[in-house]
């Protein structure tokens, strides 16, 4: 090689190197020197997406993410006290949408409406309208949805489709064994499959898996059953308070019957089920312990994708069962129906990413939240194990490739996605409570539910006690203010 050729080669090499490095140099480090403190639940669930996407965000913006976590039971308390005392320690919080009333209502979060409106890349219209509502407080948007939550019913297809079991069931109960259409059928199926080796693996298996533990999401497990008993289509305020008076509805005859039926399930599950939380429901279903279960989308994910799962390819998912009678709190009458009253319950309402009002760099905070919420990243999050994020965009249901890579097989996948879509688009879908004091209302009811499940109080006595506590909380927080906020949330003038 001649000297000229060598010079040309070296120059070309240098130019190539410079050209390759140019994008990195040229990329504007928009948030160089900015450190965002992100606070959410401890890993893996919910914190995992932050851990997944933080390096990408840091590389793209020059900023830094400091992740702080706490167990779910302490999350509300820590967030609320930090906000209320104005400590300003957290820039970004990922929290339960049900707490939006406390956080946005007290202006602890930044109003992100304008930023969302101006952000075409976020594809706001791709987010299901139900979840758009979870960040809406008084017509303004105080966060970005990063998760979609709805309670679903799960069943073991191999058990319910077994011809011998179908014949035996019909003989015993006088109707066909099928995925339960009512809570009565749910109970019968649970009873039929309880405490014998219906899976044929030499072990005892059980009828149903439920979370009864206080502090273990029992509130949502009960409410998702009760909704069908108390919410005829179009009746606003059926689930929590009478919007005219703010008198709690949780001890009306519909709730009492729902609680009696729910408590009856305690004996139709594995030993110790009274101490189960939602995590136990997931792991036990994946381990093949129950014929039926009720949970968020996670039971489907764990059952279909966990390497230790013994139920992969055997899971049917469906909209929550209904009730053949429904109590109307306005007329104070039970209504008998030809078809079961179904009321899918959007329990918990999903996780939301919000920017604290005290954030030192709001733009950076918003940018990190939109990193989690934008279509491509959120699709990766909802199709990755242990993120705790479930689908919340239309696009999450359309592209099946990620779900199959995730480990889902047919027909479980179609059944799973269809059940979620049907629940969310159901005309009688019920939203979870979202108003100031939500955590206090929840704890008061959950304590009494646990007492009823443990046999310490009758369903009536437990719910009366819970209603009395709800009245006290409402009075403490200001009845008129609570009423106005509740009516706002229901969309009533």
């Amino acid at each position: 090689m001649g000297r000229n050729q060598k010079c040309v080669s070296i120059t070309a090499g240098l130019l190539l190197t410079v050209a390759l490095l140019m994008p990195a140099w040229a990329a504007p480090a928009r948030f160089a020197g900015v450190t965002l403190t992100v606070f959410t639940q401890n890993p893996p669930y919910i914190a995992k997406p932050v851990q997944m996407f933080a390096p990408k965000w840091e590389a793209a913006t020059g900023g830094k993410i400091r992740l702080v976590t706490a167990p779910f039971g302490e999350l509300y308390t820590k967030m609320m006290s930090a906000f209320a005392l104005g400590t300003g320690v957290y820039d970004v919080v990922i929290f339960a949408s049900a707490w939006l009333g406390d956080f946005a209502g007290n202006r602890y979060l930044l109003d992100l409406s304008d930023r969302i409106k101006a952000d075409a890349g976020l594809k706001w219209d791709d987010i299901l309208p139900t979840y758009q509502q979870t960040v809406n407080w008084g017509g303004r948007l105080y966060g970005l949805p990063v998760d979609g939550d709805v309670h679903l019913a799960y069943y073991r297809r191999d058990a319910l489709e077994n011809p011998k079991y179908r014949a035996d069931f019909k003989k015993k109960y006088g109707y066909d064994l099928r995925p339960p259409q009512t809570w009565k059928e749910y109970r019968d199926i649970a009873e039929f499959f309880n405490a014998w080796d219906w899976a044929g693996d030499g072990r005892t298996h059980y009828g149903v898996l439920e979370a009864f533990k206080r502090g273990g999401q029992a509130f949502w497990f009960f409410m998702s059953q009760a909704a069908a008993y108390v919410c005829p289509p179009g009746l606003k305020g059926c689930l929590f308070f009478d919007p005219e008076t703010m008198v709690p509805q949780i001890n009306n005859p519909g709730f009492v019957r729902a609680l009696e039926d729910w408590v009856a399930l305690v004996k139709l599950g594995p030993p110790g089920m009274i101490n189960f939380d939602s995590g136990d429901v997931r792991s036990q279903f994946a381990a093949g312990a129950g014929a039926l279960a009720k949970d968020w989308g996670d039971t489907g994910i764990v059952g279909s994708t966990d390497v230790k799962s013994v139920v992969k390819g055997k899971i049917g998912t469906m909209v929550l069962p209904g009730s053949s009678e429904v109590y109307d709190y306005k007329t104070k009458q039970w209504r008998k129906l030809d078809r079961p009253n179904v009321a899918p319950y959007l329990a918990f309402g999903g996780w939301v990413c919000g920017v604290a009002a005290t954030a030192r760099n709001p733009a950076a905070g918003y940018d990190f939240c939109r990193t989690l919420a934008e279509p491509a990243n959120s699709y990766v999050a909802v199709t990755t194990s242990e993120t705790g994020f479930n689908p919340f965009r239309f696009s999450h249901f359309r592209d099946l490739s990620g779900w199959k890579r995730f480990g889902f097989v047919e027909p479980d996948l179609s059944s799973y996605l269809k059940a979620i879509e049907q629940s969310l688009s159901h005309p009688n879908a019920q939203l979870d409570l979202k108003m100031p004091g939500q955590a206090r209302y929840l704890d008061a009811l959950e304590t009494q539910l646990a007492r009823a499940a443990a046999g310490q109080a009758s369903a009536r006595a437990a719910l009366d006690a819970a209603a009395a506590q709800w009245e006290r909380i409402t009075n403490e927080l200001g009845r008129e203010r609570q009423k106005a906020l509740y009516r706002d949330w229901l969309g009533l003038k």
Partner: protein
Amino acid sequence: MIHFPAPGRSRETAGPFLFPAVALLLLFTLFPFVFTVVLTLSRVSLVGGLQLQFTGASNWVRLVTDARFWTSVRNTVIMVLASVSLEFVLGLALALLLYAPLRAGGLFRVVFIVPMTLTPIAIGYMWRMIYDESIGPLNALLREVGLGPIGWVSGTHMPLASIIITNVWHWTPFLFVLLLAGLRGIPTEVVEAAQIDGASGLQIFRYVLMPMLTPTALAAVLLRSLEAFKIVDEIFIITGGGPGTRTESLTLQAYYVGLLSFDLAYGATVAMGLFLLVVAAAMVFLSITRRSREAEEHP
């Protein structure tokens, strides 16, 4: 040579030296106590910073009419009485066992105090696994010998009994150590004299060892009881206070109410209820022991 100041001068100069300690004591002991009392008479709001609104005795009225509080009182009292009694009996038995010279006595002493050195959270998780009704070793063992599984943490009475068993396992070493030290402090001549006089082992225990051990035993039981009233960590891990509120102690209720429901004022009232219960129990205990001592001194 060391010069000691005259007594009068010492009193004059003591003030400035004592001030830091007294100030710290007031700050970290008296202030939280007074603040807790204030909380029990208030309604607390954190919106816009900490705000207290005086509500008189409403929290106290709520406390005495709260069925959950009385369940917690009952649970706490049962746990204290049962666990401290069992710990005392077992601790004394172990102390007597190692009182006499024994080969490998030192090894046993170490083994016996191991549970006390573990953290309550670790113990909670360990016993939670042991009590697990599906895969726990206890029920597996019972199944092996043909006995049905027991609902260690899910039945009506067993959950409280399970907490007591865990507590006894954890804290018996505390009483064992104190009682053994008390026994070792008794002059051997007294025991030998009783033996020469022909006293049986039981008589020596009843009329020689026990009376001389009583001051140590009382202090040990009192200390242990005061600590037992505050039980929270093991319950939190093993049962979370459940099923329902069957194993909820007062401290756990105060935590749930104050820090999970965010009802700080009522949580403080529950905590103050526990304080009054402990004070009452200590007074009753001291009064009974004083009377029994007086009865022994002046039969």
